[in-house]
């Protein structure tokens, strides 16, 4: 009990001369939490959208001639050599004709006198709907067109490809801003705490003469780092939440919403970001106290 009240007494005493740097640090930590979690939020939403896209995504390879039953296994193997796929469907001319009829609906009478033979043979490939296959879709299609008998490959639109690139770019940004978060929280916190410690240097020396234990000296300092992390992460995540609400309210046009049903960071991710910044800030404070603990 008296240990806890002592720690808080020390904290108040310390923050009396160091509050400007503490506020700066708090601000920096929460800003980097905000930046990181903001990009992470975009990333997660994009990922969701992409898997939704991925479900509808298929590549159609048009062939010169039908692949005979006996060779189909081999043909499939060639495709899966490149990447995992969910499903491969061989489409005969008759099936293609049927589909076309269905698609035309009421206008299907234009096909009435036609023979299915004007349609090409084709193979439909459904890539496994993960991010990787989306970003590699261009390579995949280049590969497919090089298969023997392939005439042309058709898939989604250009923008699917660009979307894939965008997601990989986003992934890099997430990693970079994560690194930024680590650097700022560890360095800013250890810097602030070093300032606090330096202003207390004389006191720390006397404390050692008086037999203060490591725990006594370390306690308030770790709590200071911990609190900086706590408040920094809280305000960072809260600002993200309000930013998210604002974006949602201002950009919820129907077209946009169909593709991106915006959702906030899942609780597990928020909690992880929270815990990690606590950990980083506490260890930042430990880094700077180490040299003061010599007996």
């Amino acid at each position, binding site marked *: 009990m*008296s*240990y806890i*009240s*002592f720690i808080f007494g020390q904290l108040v005493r310390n923050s009396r001369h160091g509050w400007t740097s503490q506020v700066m640090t708090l601000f920096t930590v929460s800003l980097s939490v905000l930046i990181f979690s903001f990009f992470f939020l975009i990333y997660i939403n994009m990922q969701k959208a992409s898997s939704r896209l991925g479900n509808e995504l298929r590549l159609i390879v048009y062939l010169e001639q039908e692949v005979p039953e006996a060779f189909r296994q081999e043909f499939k193997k060639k495709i899966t050599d490149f990447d995992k796929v969910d499903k491969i469907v061989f489409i005969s001319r008759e099936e293609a004709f049927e589909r076309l009829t269905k698609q035309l609906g009421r206008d299907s009478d234009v096909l009435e006198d036609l023979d299915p033979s004007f349609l090409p043979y084709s193979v439909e490939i459904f890539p496994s709907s993960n991010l990787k296959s989306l970003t590699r879709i261009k390579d995949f299609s280049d590969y497919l067109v090089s298969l023997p008998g392939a005439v042309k490959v058709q898939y989604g639109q250009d923008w699917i490809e660009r979307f894939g690139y965008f997601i990989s770019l986003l992934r890099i940004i997430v990693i970079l801003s994560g690194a930024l978060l680590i650097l700022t929280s560890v360095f800013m916190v250890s810097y602030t705490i070093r300032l606090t410690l330096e202003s207390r240097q*004389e*006191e720390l020396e*006397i*404390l*050692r*003469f*008086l*037999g*203060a*234990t*490591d725990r*006594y000296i370390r306690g308030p300092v770790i709590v200071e780092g911990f609190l900086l992390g706590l408040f920094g992460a809280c305000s960072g995540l809260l600002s993200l939440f309000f930013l998210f609400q604002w974006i949602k309210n201002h950009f919820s046009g129907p077209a946009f919403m169909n593709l991106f049903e915006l959702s906030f960071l899942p609780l597990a991710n928020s909690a992880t970001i929270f815990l990690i910044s606590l950990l980083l800030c506490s260890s930042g404070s430990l880094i700077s106290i180490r040299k003061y603990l010599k*007996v």
Partner: protein
Amino acid sequence: MTSDIASPIDTSLIDIVKVTKTYPPDIMALDDVSMSVGHGEMVFLTGVSGAGKTTLLKLLCFLERPTMGLIEMNKKDISKLSGHDLQKMRQHIGVAYQDFRLLPKQTVYQNIALAMEVRYETPKDIKQRVLELLANLGLADKIHTPTGKLSRGEQQRVSIARACANKPPLILADEPTGNLDPAATALVMNLLKRLNEDGTTIIIATHDQSIYQKSDHRLINLENGKLQEIIKVNFDL
């Protein structure tokens, strides 16, 4: 000439065995010193300036390490103590430094309280003890004055109060009356005597003949880093 000064009491608290301390480059501050101090003893350590008194006290609380020799506290070699045990040991030794080592910006109260805070004493106990000490030392009216604003004599008494705050089993006082007038000297010596009567072991390094002449405690003289003689000042015998 003897350099082996045994304690008259059997169970010794401090054993110093053939301790030599040299400061760089080659200043011999202590030369082959051996002595013991028993539990509950009061010992005066005298010697001219530069004789090595402060050095000896610093060795006892491990602020300096001996160049050679062995120092035992309660029969334990203090050079073998872990960092944590050393910290604990210091909590049980009250030291009044010759140069006071107070925090000039903090008040008399805060300076004394610090010694008790490191032992996690409750604020209530701390307050009670500090008030008691300040009353004993005639400093009650200075309780909230920053120590930097005090006279040397007042600072000296604050540093003694801090050394006594925890009622430690061992007190090392380095020139505790160096800056004091006879009245203040009497206050300090009364406090130390009372603590000694309650069982505290006390070592006092001093030039001040007035405080040991009339006492019957052991007197140890240092000369050029050597223990030169024991003068028994014993009025009862």
